[in-house]
Each structure stands twice: as structure tokens, then as C-alpha cells.
């Protein structure tokens, strides 16, 4: 994790994150093709953003991915689960081969993330809820006086959900400057383009009017992604929004920015063509079948028994 530099992230840093982003895209495509289902194009629009968070901005411990001393990441656009799993693998939580068990019956790597997976705090997949979860993590960190940060990745289609703006108002009202939302604005929803497509100014105004420090960037320009993440850390008193203009299916010309590719895995032939277009990728060995399920899950902490309630026998009290 590097401190913000007045001259921006170094060329070496940018190059390293770029390489990670490429791997995240490739693994997402491979995993969804192997599964025969999933959302590769939604993963590809977010690759640089997720790589920037995991491999530059976040303080992350792969041995204790849900640690209260580490930064937290919420994938509000839960259908991009493969890109999260790829990031967790590259970060060392489990081997890359495990990512290829996506959506299998016996794998903890479900179609949408759940806390059965290390590094996941809340199940997502029902869009619009992640920023609220992030706000809960952020106020929890504040109560603990912890310097940790929370990163939330949303899609653009999900910004139509009112709850996103409930969470935004809450976050700004409580000055949650330990909360950064990154919006992956890839223009295309499931069945057609989103309301605002690539009208980035519209999104900037929405977040800014809610009281967020807002930056608009090219979501595939790694240097810009890293600079925005660095800048977000310096903002005091306001949560931050990084509104990223992206391309759904970025990197594979057959699908990039094209309608009707939401939730469709690539055929084996398309996968090969895509990997080639991205510059080639590593071979992934078959998965040995070891589970990386997070178990047992936390239960509420114990506390001393409080004193018995004292009510006069003849009192009338509402249960509320």
C-alpha cells in the first residue's frame, strides 16, 4: 500500500496493477465459460477498478480477509462475483484454480458472493444494497476508532435503486470519510442501455449533490484509477465517489460495448479469441478440490447478564 504522491502513482505501480487487471478479466472469462453461466462482460468493465482497490489501495490480509484491522470491500454489483474471486485469488486467499470452480455445487464460490467466502462481509446479488452495507461497516469502524477504510463497487444499472441514495445520504450526513464508492458506469444494463448511459456529468451531479467528494475518471486508465483512489484517501469529512466511465466487455472486441451480452458466458472459441486479444494468459491447473469455505461464521459476542428488570407489579407498560 503506497502513500499518495504529488506526482501520482509510479509507472511501475501502474504497470503492475494493469497486469493484475488483465488477469482478473481473463480469470473471470475462464471461470464463467467453465461454469457455462455468469457475467463476464460485467467483470471486464470492472477489472481495472477492482485491481486498483485490491492491489494498490486496500490494506488487506489474505490470511484474515474479514479482519477488523483491514480495509473492507463490498461488491455491490454482486453478479460480477468472478472478478472478486479472481482478485481474492491473486491476493492469496485461495489458489487461482479455485476460481474455476465458480458456481459448482461443491464450491463455496457461488454465482453471487456470500460470507461463505473469506473477504465477503455480506451477500450481494440483490442490487442496490452494498452501499448501505458499506456504510454499516464504516460506522462500525468509526465506533472502533479504527483507521480502516471501506470500498464499495456499484454498477450503473443498480444506481436506479432508491436504497443507493438512502445510503448515500446517510453516509454523507455522518461524514463517513472512511467510505469510498466506485461506480462502474459501463452504459449497458441487462436488457438495454441504462437511463443515463455515459452521461458522466449526470452521475457526478448525483453523487456531488448527496455530499460526496466526486471524481469522474476513465475506468480503464489505470493511472487515473490509482490517482483517484489515492486522492480519495486524502478527503476529510465527506465520503468519496469515484465515477468511472467503463466499457462492458472491455478488452474483447467481439462483445465490448455491445448489447445483449449481459450474463452470457463466452464459448470456448470466443474465450480463446478473447484471451489472445488481451495478450495471452497463464495456464491454470485443475483445482484439487480443497474447500476454502469460511467456517464457522461469527456469532454474536458474549456479554454479562444485565440486572433483572424492575417493574411495579401493578404497572401498565407498553411492550414498545
Amino acid at each position, binding site marked *: 500500500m503506497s502513500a499518495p504522491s504529488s506526482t501520482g502513482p509510479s509507472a511501475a505501480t501502474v504497470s503492475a496493477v494493469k497486469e493484475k487487471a488483465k488477469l482478473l478479466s481473463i480469470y473471470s472469462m475462464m471461470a464463467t465459460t467453465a461454469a457455462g453461466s455468469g457475467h463476464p462482460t460485467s467483470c471486464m468493465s470492472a477489472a481495472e477498478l477492482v485491481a486498483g482497490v485490491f492491489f494498490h489501495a486496500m490494506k488487506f490480509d489474505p490470511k484474515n480477509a474479514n479482519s477488523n484491522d483491514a480495509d*473492507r470491500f*463490498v461488491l455491490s454489483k454482486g453478479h460480477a462475483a468472478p472478478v472478486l474471486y479472481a482478485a481474492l485469488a491473486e491476493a492469496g486467499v485461495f489458489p487461482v484454480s479455485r476460481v474455476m470452480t465458480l458456481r459448482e455445487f461443491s464450491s463455496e464460490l457461488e454465482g453471487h458472493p456470500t460470507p461463505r467466502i473469506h473477504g465477503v462481509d455480506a451477500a450481494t446479488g440483490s442490487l442496490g444494497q452494498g452501499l*448501505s*452495507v458499506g*456504510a454499516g461497516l464504516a460506522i462500525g469502524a468509526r465506533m472502533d476508532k479504527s483507521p480502516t477504510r471501506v470500498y464499495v463497487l456499484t454498477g450503473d444499472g443498480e444506481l436506479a435503486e432508491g*436504497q443507493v441514495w438512502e445510503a448515500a445520504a*446517510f453516509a454523507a*450526513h455522518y461524514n463517513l470519510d472512511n467510505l469510498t464508492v466506485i461506480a462502474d458506469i459501463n452504459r449497458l444494463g441487462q436488457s438495454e442501455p441504462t437511463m443515463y448511459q455515459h452521461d458522466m456529468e449526470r452521475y457526478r451531479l448525483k453523487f456531488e449533490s448527496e455530499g460526496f467528494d466526486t471524481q469522474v475518471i476513465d475506468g480503464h486508465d489505470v493511472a487515473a484509477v490509482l490517482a483517484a483512489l489515492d486522492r480519495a484517501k486524502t478527503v476529510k469529512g465527506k465520503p468519496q465517489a469515484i465515477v468511472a466511465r467503463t466499457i462492458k466487455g472491455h478488452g474483447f472486441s467481439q462483445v465490448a460495448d455491445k448489447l445483449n451480452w449481459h450474463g452470457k458466458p463466452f464459448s470456448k472459441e470466443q474465450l480463446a479469441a478473447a484471451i489472445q486479444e488481451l495478450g495471452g494468459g497463464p495456464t491454470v491447473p485443475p483445482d484439487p478440490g480443497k474447500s476454502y469455505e469460511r467456517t464457522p461464521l461469527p456469532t454474536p459476542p458474549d456479554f454479562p447478564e444485565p440486572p433483572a428488570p424492575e*417493574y411495579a407489579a401493578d404497572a401498565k407498560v407498553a*411492550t414498545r
Partner: protein
Amino acid sequence: MVAISGDVKNSTFSEIFGDAYPDHFWQGYIAEQNLVSVAVGLQARGKVPFADTFACFLSRAYDNVRMAAISRANINLCGSHCGVSIGEDGPSQMALEDIAMFRAIHGSAVFYPSDAVSTERITETMARRPGINYLRTSRPKMPILYAKDEKFPVPGFKVLRKSADDKVTVIGAGVTLHEALKAADQLKATGTAVRVIDLYCVKPLDGKALAAEVGATGGRLVTAEDHWPEGGLGEAVLHALAAAGAPPAKFKLVAVTDMPHSGKPDELVDAFGISARHIVEAVKGVL
């Protein structure tokens, strides 16, 4: 422990907690979906959240509750002002489906206490219990039923009236528990003894234990609730008895069936079919 409220802290009295522990209280304003998901975030950091709002408004956060179950979250939700017994505000503020809603959440517990002592003790139980815990509270003032050291196990219920001559078991909670006690007094005065059960825990249920009580009254059962008939206390009890191999021999389910409107709480409880006289009628109907 953290309390987060949907702008009703002065109705649900989470403000009492908030005044005592201001650093642990968050005003959620009128945004119930956010309220529930923020609670999920909080418990992921090891906090014990209690989110409160009017019970009826939790219905707009049902997807959030559903996702909280998938998240295996440990959260406590308190829905107040349940049923027609809230009175003048009318049906937009009355929860009549919340028991059904929360029963159908994986791993949930549904509590519906009838006095202040049980409410306090159950709140403590909820804080310890993993999963989604729902507490249904009421607006009207109710008499104290229990001594301060009473325990409220989960599953569990309290038999408040019992004799060797009980002809029918009557199960209620909240306002209907108190109406059932009035009904029992009226029936006793006319020579019919009935057993009265406070079903402070609607889920989970101990079907065998319930079957023992209903069995002792010849399989004759009346349930009463400030809730629609679908999916509430009565259906929960029926299912538990049947699953224990002991469906009731004769049964009446007393619940709200017509669309309520404004009125005094006592007026509404009577007009909408769940007061003592309706319970008396139901008992006679199964004798």
C-alpha cells in the same frame, strides 16, 4: 450493542438507549431498506445491532431481510405498533402481516411478548442468538405478567391459566393474550375453564409441548392474534401441532379479517374480531 432507528426513536423508545449510550445510537432517518442493510454491515464488524421502526415499515425492507439471511447475518429487528391495537392512525401504520413475513426467513426467531418483563428478557436473548431475530411490540399499555427473574426459553411459551378442568386451550400474544385472559375470566364465571397460553415465541415452536397442552384439553384449540389469518400465530401453531402428530380435534383461528380503519384501540380490537368476546365465542364454537 448498537441501536439504529428509522426516525421513530421517540415512539419505539430506542431514544432511551440513545440517551444513555449516544456513541452507540445512530439515527437512520426514514429509510428502512438502508436501516436493515446498515445493520448487516455493523454485525460484519462484530457489533450487535438492534434496528427499530414501525413493524409495518419493515415490509419495505423485506428484500434486505431476505439478503441478510443469505448473509447469515446476526441482526435484531424490532417492529413496533403492530396490529389494529394501535388505534387512530389507521391501517397504513398497522402491521398485520409481519409475523408471516418474519417466519418465512431462514433461521429467524419471532418474538411477540405480552409484558414489559418478558420484552426486556427477550431483548437480551435476541442479543445472544445468532441469525435474524424479530421482536414484535405493541403500542397499548399492558399489565405486568411476570416476576423479574422469570426465564423465557427459546422455543417456549407460558401457561398463564391452568386447571384440571380446562376444556379448551387458548393461545394468544400481545393484546390478544390479555384479551384471552379476560375471556378466560368471563368463561370461568359461566362454568367453563380454559387454559391460556402466552406464545411469546412464535418461531421456533415446540410442537410436542404445545400438543401436550392441547391434548389435555381434548384437542380443542383457539388461537387469537392481532394479525391477518395468513401465516401468523395460528397457522404456526397448527403446523407445529400437525408436525408433532397431534393436529387439533376442533380449532378456531381468531384474527383480523376485514380491512381496518381508524378508531380507539379498544374499539378496533373489538370491531375487527379479536377482543375477549370474540375469543369467548370461538371457545364456545369448539366445545
